[in-house]
């Protein structure tokens, strides 16, 4: 009966079945973990307000359902989650789904752009450095990689801001668009692009250093293997050797890293988003912890766990494509 299905579909279905308990475990675990943090959203709110009287605090707890025992709260949450209802954010006074969707676009745009730039440029530079190992080119590239690798992102961001916004006045300091600029059409696109230059550059420079270093060592390692020598002996040109034999094999660990980093895309970058005041998911997650906004935080984690499961699956498929010795089982 099931034998009629192609193996890839059986594989996919099995992975899906495995994913459900994983996600449930993540959600329950996170919920309990967050409950271990001292204080709740009412405390955070009262902290923001600069004080409140006891009845006020009590009334808010009842309204937010925080007067119930933890397991009742957990049950209520999981019940709603089963219908894909992410609940209500008491900080933003909006449904969590709306809050998340508002932020998702910014984060995806920022992370997809920075990761693609970082991956492409990083892999290219890494390969060049490895081919000219220990030459001046390699030294320059490796040193640059090391510098970006070692620079904290907040420092890089602030220095760029100081140079390009404060001193030169070329780029806007932060935000996603010029508020009260009321741009439409292409002007709006240009405006958003201008706002994204610095955060994208800051993020991709940091990611880039990872790919560069990994690709360089990976290429160096593969270049010494027997099959490369065989290919060379059979008369393969250096270019063909590089692209067909070395790079394809050297890419495996780099793809693993790419998969790992792509999983964290939704988490965004707390630091970069905060400094450039980009309304993304990273900043939202951070704020939610500070404000003990359970529903929002759980919503973000739910979204992230789904992405992680999906990306892991896609990475496995990609492995099989890159290296035919790997079988899907």
């Amino acid at each position, binding site marked *: 009966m099931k034998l009629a299905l192609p193996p890839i579909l059986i594989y996919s279905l099995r992975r899906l079945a495995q994913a459900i308990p994983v996600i449930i475990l993540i959600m329950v675990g996170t919920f309990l973990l967050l409950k271990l*943090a*001292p*204080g*709740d*959203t009412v*405390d*955070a*709110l*009262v*902290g*923001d*307000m*600069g*004080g*409140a*009287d*006891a*009845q*006020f*605090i009590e009334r808010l707890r009842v*309204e937010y359902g925080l007067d119930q025992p933890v397991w009742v709260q957990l049950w209520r949450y999981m019940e709603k989650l089963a219908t894909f209802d992410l609940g209500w954010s*008491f*900080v*933003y*006074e*909006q449904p969590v789904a709306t*809050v998340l969707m*508002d*932020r998702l676009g910014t984060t995806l745009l920022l992370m997809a752009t920075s990761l693609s730039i970082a991956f492409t440029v990083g892999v290219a530079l890494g390969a060049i450095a490895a081919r000219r190992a220990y030459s001046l080119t390699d030294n320059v590239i490796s040193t640059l990689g090391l510098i970006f690798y070692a620079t904290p992102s907040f420092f890089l961001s*602030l220095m760029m*801001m*100081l140079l390009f*916004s*404060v001193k030169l*006045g070329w780029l*806007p*300091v*932060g*935000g*996603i668009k010029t*508020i*009260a600029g009321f741009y439409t059409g292409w002007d709006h696109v240009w405006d958003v692009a201008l706002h994204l230059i610095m955060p994208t550059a800051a993020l991709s420079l940091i990611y880039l250093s990872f790919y560069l270093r990994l690709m360089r060592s990976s290429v160096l390692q593969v270049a010494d293997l027997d099959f490369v020598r065989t290919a060379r002996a059979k008369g393969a040109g250096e270019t063909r050797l590089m692209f067909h034999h070395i790079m394809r094999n050297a890419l495996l660990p780099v793809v693993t890293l790419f998969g790992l980093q792509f999983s964290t895309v939704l988490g965004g970058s707390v630091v970069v988003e*905060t*400094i*450039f*005041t980009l*309304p993304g998911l990273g*900043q*939202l997650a951070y*704020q939610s912890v*500070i404000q*003990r906004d359970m529903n929002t935080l759980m919503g973000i984690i739910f979204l992230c766990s789904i992405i992680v499961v999906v990306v892991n699956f896609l990475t496995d498929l990609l492995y099989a494509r890159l290296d035919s010795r790997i079988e899907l089982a």
Partner: protein
Amino acid sequence: MKKRLSRLGLAFVGAAALGAPIATNAQEVKTGGTAIIHMISEQRTLNPALRASTGVYNISGKIVEPLIDKSYDGYEPVLATDWSSSEDGLAITVNLREGVKWHDGEDFTCEDVSFTAMNMWKELLNYSSALQSNLESVDCPDPHTAVFNYSKPMPLELFVAAMPDLGHPMPKHLYEGTDILKNELNTAPIGTGPFKFVEYERGQYVMAVKNEDYWREGYPYLDRIVWRFIKDKSAAAAALEAGEVHESGFIGVSMADVERLSEDDRFDVGTKGYENNVAHSTVEFNHRNPILADLKVRQAIYHGLDIDYAIDTIMRGFAKPGRGPVPSAGGANYTDDVKTYDYDPELAKEMLDEAGYPVKDDGFRFKLRHRPAPWGEYTQLWAEYFAQAMKEIDIDVEILTNDAPGFLNGVYRDHDFDTANGWHQFRSDPAVSTMVWLRSGQPNGTPWTNQFGWQSDEMDQMIDDAASELDPDKRAEMYHEIQKKAMEELPVIFAIEHPFISVTSKKLKNHHNTPRWNSSSWYDLWLDE
């Protein structure tokens, strides 16, 4: 010391120049333009009748107006025109301004005041629900007269002092019959103010535009106000310098940037406009700890603190030493005729020896677990200074760092601390602010109240008497006594009195010209661009 005095002096000279009407005449007023204001944190609500907080007023104060505001010349009628009290203090009559319209075109009347007072100020508004607990009803003999009836005497002075913060009427016709807390207008307010709410983009900005039908003829000057949320203090300083933001209030940039920008002639940096938002940096004791229950120990700790040094280094000179629960901005209720504690570590050590806490083998007399409030940079620095100063007099202080909910629970609910520090705002009148620090009997877990395990029947009686005393002179006298007693018994050390600090672009004109400027309506603010 010299540096500190000169800073404050300058701030006040600046105050006089800006406050004077000559300043406006010197330059032709320009209309139009968008003022961009830095906000450090997101606001959950923009309804000032549901949440008393400067973060809320900083935005909604331009959209929703109070009955009474405060200017440098005293209390200023806004939606109220005048007010009086009955002989017995049980009824307060407020006459309301005629011809004022809500932003949706409806008339503002006594019905709005009555509805808001009974349903929000008395029931739902923090600080106000305690103040208005004896409010029985608000009568409307005619559409522009409101009579507040109390079951116990309410001092008119206290009522008026509370109104700028706790007296914002909301439109009855839009709230009646709805779930007030869930009403959508709480984040999209409709008021009578000079600016109308446009939109609130979470995590980014709030925008308001000029109200063309504002009741003050010819105002406001600005076309638009935008509040930008920038969490990172360094990024906020960069935005100010790049000219993308015109003002950052409530110490929205780091103290190092405050100092740096104060030397930059593009900005006005100072404490002016915060006279009504003065706060104390404190040292709080857990009197359940027998060591700290000893008055001598608390006094020794005070002698071990070099307040002037802390003011110069942490507050960069923008502060002065505290003199008890009423700050010098408290007007007639303030006195500086109180016991003080000079910096004298040798005396402190002697006092600790006398109290029976000699230095032990490990080099310390005893150990204190200290919780610093996470209210910004200078609160943390003050905690670090405290630990350092205590080491000088051989007391070991362990700092337990936590975020806001952790701090509030640790100190006010679980009482899991020996000492703590934070800052606490004075709200015009001691009865609605700092007295909760000393009055016992506050329910467990209520933040910013006396959860220190300190109790004095005499003090409780003094506080209750002062709160219902109708004669302002006698009342002031009573607060002086409370201050003296607080400085003698030191339930809490009100170590440093500091206003907040603003960094304002000089392009903004008429800025910080009232004692609660960031909370006020900005109808006369204009932009020279």
